[in-house]
Each structure stands twice: as C-alpha cells, then as structure tokens.
C-alpha cells in the first residue's frame, strides 16, 4: 500500500502540468508548426526540419512579435501588460493600506456592530461582477471614469478590500496587545503605536495580502471587459479580444504572452505557498 499514493499523484500531476509544458513549447514554435496536424514535441536548433518530424526548429520570434501591434489592434502586447501592471500595483497598494487600517480598527477597538460590519465586508466578495457592473458604469459615467485606469483601480480596490480586511485582521489579531500597551506606557500616541509597533509586526501579513490582491486584480476579466473598450484594456481583455481574429489566432504569440503573463503569478504562488490556505479562505482557516 506504500506506493498506492503514486497511482493517484502521477497521472494527475502529468495531466495537470502538461498544458503548462505545452504552453512553453508552443511559444517557441512558428505559427505553421503550432497549427500543424502533426504535433512536434522536441525543440531543436536545426534550421530545416521535415514536416511530420517529432522535433521542430525553436525560435524566439513569437516573443519578438509581442512588441509590435497585432493586426486590428491599436497597441502591442506590452502596452496592455503595462496597463495590467499599473492597475494591479496601484489597486493592490490602496487595498492593502485601507484594508490594514480597517483590520486594525476592528481588531483593537470596540466598534458598534463590529461582527455585522465584518460579515458585510466578507459578503461583498460574493457578488457576481456582471450583476453589479451596470450601476458602477452609470456612476462612472457621471465622473468620466469609464475607460480610465483610475476607474479600474478604484473598482479593484473595492473588490479586494474584503480579502484585505479579513486577511489582515487575522494577522493583526495574532500580534500581542501587550506590545502596544507597552508603547502607550512609554508615551506613544495611539496612532504612533499603530505606526511604530503594529505595522512592522504585520509586514509578513501585508506582503501575503498584497500578493493575493495583486493576483485577483491581475486575473480579473468581467469588470475589465464591461468598463473598458479602449484606454485601460488589461491583458485578459486583450487576449480574449483576439478570438475570432480574421488572420487566425496567432498561437505562438499568445503562448508567449500567456507565459509572460502567468510566470509572475506562478512565482508569487510559490513564494506565498505557506499562506495559500489563508489566502483562499479569507483568513478563516489558519495553518
């Protein structure tokens, strides 16, 4: 029975990682090789390889082409990647700042109806984007916010606040109150106690929270699609827009772009692996 676990793990591991390996291989192919009806598996440095061979001549062309706009698109891939980076980073920053403050308030002060507020905050995470996006769009039209980076940054901040507050509250609850009490005795003001004691002690929590906020802003599609058609288009919306392209979908370029887009997320996932459980359950389960 000792080895029976492998009967489950090996097939699943193989099937689950195969699409990701295929992604890497595809990004090194030419369009002809990518949509050939005989798939080639082994990258090779040889120039001319007969069709039907198991190996293909590897090229970085797909990565190079990402720098030029695709047919029918106003900008190159990197333009949309930059949009994703700007929106992701700024919305993460604001959610972590507001979320940490809010979590600290709920963790340390007596606030009327605190439990109800906290559960209200959690419940906002469950709303389906498409069921709330139209009122947001109407509100944005009044303030000229559709099609702007700021519009998505504000929306993602609101969307991620529930996660940020709940995760940060879990982390701040774990910091002993005695630390701040000692600081207050030493003559710190309550705000100084927060600034000089709590913030340094919750650095790990803030980093973990930032990673989860960044990932959900980075991957978000529904809001980004509904609120944007020109200026602040993020990578998921850009890629989805390539569907039905007249010249055929440029698969090697898409594979290269997808790879560039998901590698940071994979790296972050590995960095926060010990906190993943907390992150996906809003801090309600602690390891």
């Amino acid at each position: 029975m000792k080895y029976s676990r492998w009967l489950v793990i090996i097939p699943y591991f193989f099937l689950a990682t195969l699409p990701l390996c295929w992604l890497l291989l595809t990004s090194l192919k030419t369009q002809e090789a990518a949509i050939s009806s005989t798939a080639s598996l082994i990258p090779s440095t040889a120039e001319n390889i007969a069709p039907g061979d198991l190996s293909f001549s590897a090229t970085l062309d797909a990565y190079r082409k990402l720098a030029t706009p695709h047919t029918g698109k106003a900008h190159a891939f990197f333009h949309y990647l930059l949009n994703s980076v700007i929106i992701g980073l700024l919305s993460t920053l604001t959610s972590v700042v507001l979320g940490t403050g809010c979590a600290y308030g709920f963790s340390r002060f007596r606030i009327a109806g605190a439990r109800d507020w906290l559960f209200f905050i959690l419940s906002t995470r469950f709303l389906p984007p498409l069921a709330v996006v139209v009122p947001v769009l109407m509100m944005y039209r009044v303030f000229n916010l559709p099609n702007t980076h700021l519009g998505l940054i504000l929306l993602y901040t609101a969307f991620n606040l529930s996660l940020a507050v709940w995760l940060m509250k879990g982390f701040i609850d774990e910091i002993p109150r005695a630390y701040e009490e000692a600081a207050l005795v030493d003559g710190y003001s309550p705000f100084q106690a927060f600034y000089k004691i709590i913030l340094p002690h919750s650095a790990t929590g803030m980093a973990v929270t930032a990673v989860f906020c960044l990932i959900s802003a980075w991957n978000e599609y529904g809001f980004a699609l509904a609120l944007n058609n020109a200026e602040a288009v993020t990578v998921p919306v850009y890629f989805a827009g390539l569907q039905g392209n007249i010249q055929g979908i440029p698969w090697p370029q898409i594979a290269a772009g997808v790879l560039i887009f998901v590698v940071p997320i994979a790296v972050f996932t590995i960095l926060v692996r010990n906190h993943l459980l907390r992150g996906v359950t809003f801090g309600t389960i602690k390891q």
Partner: protein
Amino acid sequence: MRVKDGILKYGFVGPALIFLIAFNIFPLFYNIYLSFTDAELSGGATQLIGGRNYGVIFDDTRYSTALRTTGLFVVLAVAVELLLGFALALALQKPFWGKPIITTILLVPMMLSPAVMGLYWNFILNGHYGVVNQALSVFGLFQPQWLTDPDLKLFSILMIDIWMWTPFMMLIALAGLNAIPNHLYEAAAIDRASRWTIFRRITLPLCSPLLFLAVLLRTTDALKQFDLVMAVTGPNDRATQTLSALLYQVMFRGYKIGLGSSYSIVILLIVIALASIFIRYIASIQAKQGRESA
C-alpha cells in the same frame, strides 16, 4: 487602548467601509431600481415600466435554459473537484520525498487567469491541430470536436474548470487531514480497525467541516461562471450560456440594462443566500475556535 480612541477608530475603519458601500450597496439598490425601468446602455430617456421586465423573464426560454446550464455546471464542477481534490489530498497526506514541491506545483493552476487560460485551452482542445486530439489519434481513439459539438462544449468548459479548481479542494482537504490528531489513528490501529472503518469513522467526519467550507466557496464562485464561457464559446451560445453570460449578452450586446437588471436580481438572491450560509458557518467555526483557545 480605550483612551481617546473615539475619532481615531473611525479614521481606521471609515475609509474602507465608505468604499465598500459605494461599490456594493449603492449598485445593489440601483440595480433594483433599474430592473423596474426600460433603461438602455446607450443612455437616453428612461421610464419606469413597473414589473414588465419580470414578466418577460418567465417567457424567456433563454433564462430558464441559462438557469439549468448554470445549475448543471455548478453541481458537476463542484462534485468532481471535491472528489478529485479529496483523493489527491489523501494521497498527499503522509510525508514523503518531494511532497512540498509536488503540492506547490499542483496548486499553480488555481492562481492563473481563467480568461487567459480559457483562451489557451481553445488551442489545446482544437479539433484539427489540438494536442489532445492528436494524442487520441496516436492511440487510434475517437477524436471528439470539443469546442464545436453542442453536446460537448459545456463538458469542455467543465474540464478546464476542473483543471483550475481541483487544487483548491485539495488544499483545503489537506488542511483538514493535517488537523486530525494522530492519537486517533493510533487508537484505531490498536483496535485493529480496517482502513475503510478508519476512513469512514475518523478521516471523513473530522475532515467534513472544512470540506463543507470548500464546497460553499467553490459553489458561490462557480455560480458566477463567466470567464471560461466567454473564452471558449462567447456569451451567446445556447449550449453554454450561464447566467452571467446571459447577463452580458442582454446588457452589453443587446443594450437592455433594465431587462438585464431584473435578470440579475434572481442570481443575486441565490448568491446572497449562499453567502449568508457561508457566513453563518464561518461564525460558528470562529465561535468554536474562540471557546477552544479560551
């Protein structure tokens, strides 16, 4: 800490709460208002038309079809993900060489963007050059048209969802398994309990609270299914139109936001009901934790 904290505490919690109310409570009520109007996305004069939108819902077969598609999708996705994830967690329960790295790699798909990965899966599942069908042809097996066969499209979306979210179930199931105290297993070994008995009387009951939590979280998420549907078939495919896809079709392709809002009220009611079950459950778990640590 209780000194002079009157204004300060509202300074801490206030900004976040204002934000959340502006982006959640306001849209919710505005949605209800819109659902009683003939508002169009392009703007223009809007009139209150009473409950006419709600009357249309029940004549619209698209709506009942979308409800059925969403229901089927949620049940199948959550069930398969739970079973597979739990099986994987059981296989990964005991320490062995390579366990941390294997577990971490398995978790990667759930962190990726569904919209982007959904597009890429079109390439894998393509009927002509897709690698899945080419592999099937090597073994001389039947090659289904994953993306164009109306009977298979939903199944293909389901497959991608399972690929992405089985790790989520696995992660939570593993936490449940790790929390089972070892002495229970030792006592069972002394009693010469069979593996099946141990599983049924110790593992499953002690793991089930966390599994229930995982199922609730996945259900609320799967109910919103939109990204993969858009990536694989677009919003207006009869065979795969989930509620969110129908909302998108009605509001952003048909410009009927009044009508769309009335459609969204029902989906909101379902989600709110599930969310409140989730929240009560969390509250009961937290109360229990509080008692244990006290």
